[in-house]
């Protein structure tokens, strides 16, 4: 079996590469989750009420997708710096579970409901779940460093 030796990873051999990658990861997650939050605030009926939910989704979706793609490329690179550390980290495991649910939810229930300009009750439910899921992802990620 081929063994992967993280010490050969360029990320572990250059002082600036790891922090730079983290900065890219953080900036892109802020944009992806931030743009989803904008739709959620509208679904919850507490922000951007001059636009319809469908209009806001249409306006923000491309930016959510592009930034999410950057998050999903930078994340595995960060992971590659020390796979064993992450695989045994409860914060990381929780984050991956929450992330999977959040992404599936976002591109099924969330987008479908947002496109249909839902009733206030349905909007609040769908928006509230979305906020809770993404906040969980952020907390899981941060707790990687503390668990």
């Amino acid at each position, binding site marked *: 079996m081929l063994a992967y030796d993280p010490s050969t990873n360029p990320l572990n051999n250059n002082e600036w590469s790891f922090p730079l990658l983290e*900065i890219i990861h953080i*900036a892109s997650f802020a944009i992806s989750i*931030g743009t989803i939050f*904008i739709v959620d605030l509208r679904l919850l009926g507490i*922000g951007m009420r001059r636009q319809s939910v469908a209009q806001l989704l249409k306006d*923000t979706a491309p*930016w959510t997708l592009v930034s999410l793609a950057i998050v999903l490329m930078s994340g595995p690179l960060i992971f590659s710096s020390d796979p064993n550390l992450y695989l045994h980290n409860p914060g990381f495991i929780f984050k991956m579970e929450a992330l999977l649910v959040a992404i599936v939810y976002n591109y099924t229930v969330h987008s479908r409901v947002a496109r249909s300009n839902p009733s206030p009750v349905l909007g609040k439910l769908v928006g509230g779940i979305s906020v809770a899921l993404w906040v969980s992802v952020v907390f899981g*990620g*941060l707790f990687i460093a503390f668990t």
Partner: protein
Amino acid sequence: MSLLSVFQWLQATEFATALRESALVYPTVMATHLTGMALFGGMIFLTDLRILGIAMRGTPVSDVVNQFRPWKHAGLTLVATCGIMLAWAKAEFYYHNPFFWAKLILLALVGVHAMVFRKSVYKNTAELDRAPVMPTNAKVAACLSLLLWISILSMGRLIGYYELPVQASVPAPGQQTLLLAPAPR
């Protein structure tokens, strides 16, 4: 009384010590700092790209700027409150940290940016809606805003990577040992 002794006093307060030593509260404050950043940062990013004519083109500039404003203020309040708590908990480490001071200077420049552009851009959105082409000063404001905030985010992350020179980390007699934030890896 030197500035350093003020920061040492801040770090030695009961509040800072409890915060720093809490396995749950300290990371929760940091995670809230990041969550607030997503709310706040996402809106800054979209506002600037809207002014540049790149994003949200189906929505008038005035609707974007005016409806984001209360949430940006709320997000900034949340992020700043958490940020102050994080710095307070490890005040002496922050005092010695060049990335912390760079971040503060950049935040001061955000204030300058607001003073320079508020009247002509952010409080003048009805005019921007009517303009056939986006005025240059509005585009300059948007570019500078993007540059400032990405720099602030970068400095914030780099704070965690700074290591104190050895002599600065030697505690004075009777003083509590400095706790350093290891780079979260």
